[in-house]
């Protein structure tokens, strides 16, 4: 068999070309190091393109009272204080500059009446804070970064998936994977690697994530010796489409609720008032009249429809279980009764289009049917908060693949800003690291040969398991047993099934032909998805409390002791091994910002709000 590998050499290799990867590559290239950007799909198609609502940044254009301290507070409280305080601080402080920088590169956000960037309301954010372009903010962001990267002349390798990192004496020396268009193995010899590979939503059946989301970065990091933290923290976005089946899970932006949409059960009841947790009572309206006034007058407390995502997803789940769901097993999201057709079409054009074309529902006239969908993994690679370097020298991580920033639950809008802030830092510090290295790390040729054989192995087997069937079994397992509400018993059952699936996945046989072979690709993705699924499930079993994106039916309350701990995952001799580590404590001046806060009566009328 021909196992020739196409070799490339760079200082910094960025794996993943969504917002974080593009921003990292731009920064590394600006630092003057040889930079490669590896794209699992075509350039500009990464998951960032699907982000709808906006980029959270305390620009203060709509509410001048907004500033980084309020944003920091909202992020930490939304994350149930499990966030790394330093990441949340850096993020809140740097997000405005990163948004304004996009404008310098040609992005065109919606405007206030004064001609500044308009900001919209979103769940968990004290003030209207999200810079946006209608409901296609992600497209604006990725295209702006893409065009800027292209003009910088960065080398881009499209439709190329990295499956394994290479190391020399415990530090990064490169990565190896599969170039679909050429049908050959590709090896990137590098001084530093930035992981910007996103999450692992494709291990669940109902997800807003595309086929690319198979946990490549989590698995590569683990296998290279890095640590992951808090993999049990999985975000179920409360509003995914539920019907037709073929679009089940497809995202419905939180902007629908930010712009006035409310949740209702089959009896027409606005049920969120029943699910306001103690933690958010002081700042949440407990009656419809006050909630309705809040949209125009922020001296009122905010509507519970815009509680953080974990709270809303659990509430919807409970309503459906209680038999008050919609015909297709969700609940109703209604914006038509509050807003005009013209307003809805202008603010939410792609939602209008998506429901009209795919479900035959006119959202300017009728309510949408929605339900929770696996959307995001808060857990991920444990990184240094300032430099984004993992516990493996030369390995950096930014965006969804990294952990710490969002704690136990991510606020909407904080992902796009995370990508920009930590993408830039990853590129910067990876480039600095590469410059400091006296020589290229050596490639271990035995390692290269072993990894090549591993990648090619499914092509050589005959009559084994079908990867599509195994993938369906895995997504059923994670959906049924590692979902929104978890129990020790079900998590143990999940581990047994994952174990058996792993044995079978090692026997996957795929159709022949190396060029653009999706069955071969899926066989390789299965390995990473299974490793990630085990990490999530084991972490979920260990954390005996309910917090943010992790809810245990057998431990239904948050536990103050667990609130001070990260669950750390690593591999030892190929086996997943867990331990806990103390969460770093914020300095007292930042801790003082984190208390409950009622809306102040002296809040001004918004400057340029519509």
């Amino acid at each position, binding site marked *: 068999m021909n196992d020739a590998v196409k070799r490339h050499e760079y200082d910094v290799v960025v794996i993943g070309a969504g917002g974080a990867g593009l921003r990292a590559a731009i920064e590394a290239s600006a630092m003057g190091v040889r930079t490669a950007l590896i794209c699992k*799909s*075509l*350039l*500009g*198609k990464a*998951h960032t*393109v*699907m982000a709808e609502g906006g980029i959270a940044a305390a620009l203060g254009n709509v509410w001048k009272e907004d500033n980084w301290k309020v944003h920091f507070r909202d992020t930490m409280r939304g994350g149930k204080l499990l966030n790394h305080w330093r990441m949340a601080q850096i993020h809140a402080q740097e997000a405005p500059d990163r948004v*304004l920088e996009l404008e*310098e*590169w*040609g992005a*065109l*956000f*919606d*405007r206030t009446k*004064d*001609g*500044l960037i308009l900001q919209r309301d979103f769940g968990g954010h004290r003030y209207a804070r999200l810079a946006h*372009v*209608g409901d*296609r903010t*992600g*497209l*604006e962001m990725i*295209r702006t970064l893409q*065009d*800027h990267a*292209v*003009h910088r002349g960065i080398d*881009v390798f499209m439709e190329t998936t990295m499956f394994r990192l290479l190391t020399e004496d415990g530090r990064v020396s490169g990565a190896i994977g599969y170039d679909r*268009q050429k049908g050959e193995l590709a090896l990137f010899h590098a001084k530093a690697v930035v992981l910007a590979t996103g999450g692992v939503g494709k291990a669940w059946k109902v997800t807003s994530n*595309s*086929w*690319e989301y198979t946990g490549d970065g989590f698995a590569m990091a683990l296998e290279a010796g890095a640590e992951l933290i808090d993999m049990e923290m999985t975000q179920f976005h409360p509003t995914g489409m539920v*019907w*037709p*089946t*073929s*679009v089940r899970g*497809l995202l419905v932006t939180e902007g629908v609720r930010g712009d006035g949409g409310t949740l209702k059960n089959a009896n027409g009841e606005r049920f969120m008032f029943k699910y306001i947790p103690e933690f958010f009572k002081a700042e949440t309206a407990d009656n419809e009249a006050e909630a309705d006034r809040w949209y125009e007058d922020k001296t009122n407390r905010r509507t519970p429809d815009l509680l953080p995502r974990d709270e809303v997803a659990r509430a919807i789940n409970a309503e459906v279980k209680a038999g008050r769901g919609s015909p297709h097993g969700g609940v109703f999201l209604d914006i038509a009764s509050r807003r005009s057709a013209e307003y809805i079409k202008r603010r939410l054009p*792609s939602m209008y*289009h*998506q429901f009209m*074309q*795919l*479900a035959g529902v006119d959202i300017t006239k009728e309510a949408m049917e929605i339900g929770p969908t696996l959307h995001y993994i808060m857990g991920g690679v444990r990184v240094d908060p300032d430099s984004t370097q993992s516990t493996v020298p030369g390995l950096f991580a930014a965006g969804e693949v990294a952990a710490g920033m969002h704690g136990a639950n991510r606020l909407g809008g904080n992902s796009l800003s995370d990508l920009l802030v930590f993408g830039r830092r990853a590129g910067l510090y990876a480039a600095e690291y590469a410059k400091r290295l006296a020589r290229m790390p050596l490639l271990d040729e035995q390692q290269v040969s072993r990894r090549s054989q591993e990648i090619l192995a499914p092509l050589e087997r005959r009559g084994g398991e*079908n990867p*599509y*069937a195994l993938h*369906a079994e895995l997504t059923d397992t994670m959906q049924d047993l590692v979902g929104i509400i978890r129990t020790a018993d079900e998590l143990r059952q999940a581990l047994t099934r994952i174990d058996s699936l792993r044995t079978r996945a090692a026997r996957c046989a*795929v*159709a*022949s*032909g190396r*060029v*653009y*072979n*999706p*069955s071969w690709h899926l066989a390789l993705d299965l390995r990473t998805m299974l490793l990630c699924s085990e990490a999530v499930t084991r972490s979920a079993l260990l954390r005996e409390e309910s917090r943010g994106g992790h809810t245990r039916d057998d431990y239904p309350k948050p536990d103050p002791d667990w609130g001070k701990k990260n669950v750390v995952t690593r591999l030892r001799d190929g086996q997943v091994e867990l331990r806990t580590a103390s969460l770093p404590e914020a300095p007292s001046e930042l801790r003082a910002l984190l208390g409950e806060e009622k809306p102040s009566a002296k809040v001004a009328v918004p400057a340029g709000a519509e």
Partner: protein
Amino acid sequence: MPNVKVNVFRGDASGGQLKRYDVPTDPGMVVLDVVHRIQATQEPDLAVRWNCKAGKCGSCSAEINGLPKLMCMTRMDTFEEGEEITVTPVKTFPVIRDLVTDVSYNYEWAKTIPAFKPKPKEADGTRRMYQDDVERVQEFHKCIECFLCQDVCHVIRDHEEDKAGFAGPRYFVRLAALEMHPLDTNDRTELIRQKYGLGYCNITKCCTDVCPEHIHITDNAIIPLKERVVTSTYDPVGWALRRMRGKPATLAAGEPEPPSA
């Protein structure tokens, strides 16, 4: 739901043929679901490019019964019951495998377009633009780069030899977005005239018809660009001087005819 009969192109750069599949369907399915079902149950190596499955990324472009469309946004219930459906790769670009084509032509053109170059900030350090001023360009920014406009454009669809001198509707939209950006200071008019081949477009509006984002490519991007090129190259004084000196007026491709004397 009855089974549907689907013909799918199977092959690569060296050629191929349509293969017929009998596929069970469910309510609400789109063409991409049918292709995925074939992949999962009958042809594991059937190559198809896709990502978001929501009409937002522009990956799953193909020709469905000969019409350029996104597979993820084409519902099966838009076909007559019993109607045979044929899915082929976009015709303008070379096949890599099955429904996947080599669209690098587009990315190569993108590299050549001079970058956004903003004017200085306001005195107070801000950037002020008004909604009315940005909306025109926001329409162009809706482009999801599905390249269906490039696929349908007859200038390159039927003339491989013209690809080197014609950037195509997608990049006219991109150029229009830059030229009409309220902050941009770069002037690309001469390049649009000489290099990007705007003059080849004879505004048949095929691109506008297939745009899944409903961008008015011809009316709002191409025609205003043509007008800009005309304005900047229309120089009646120079033309009259050349006539008086007896030198023939030489026209570059796309340059408008001078007015008849």
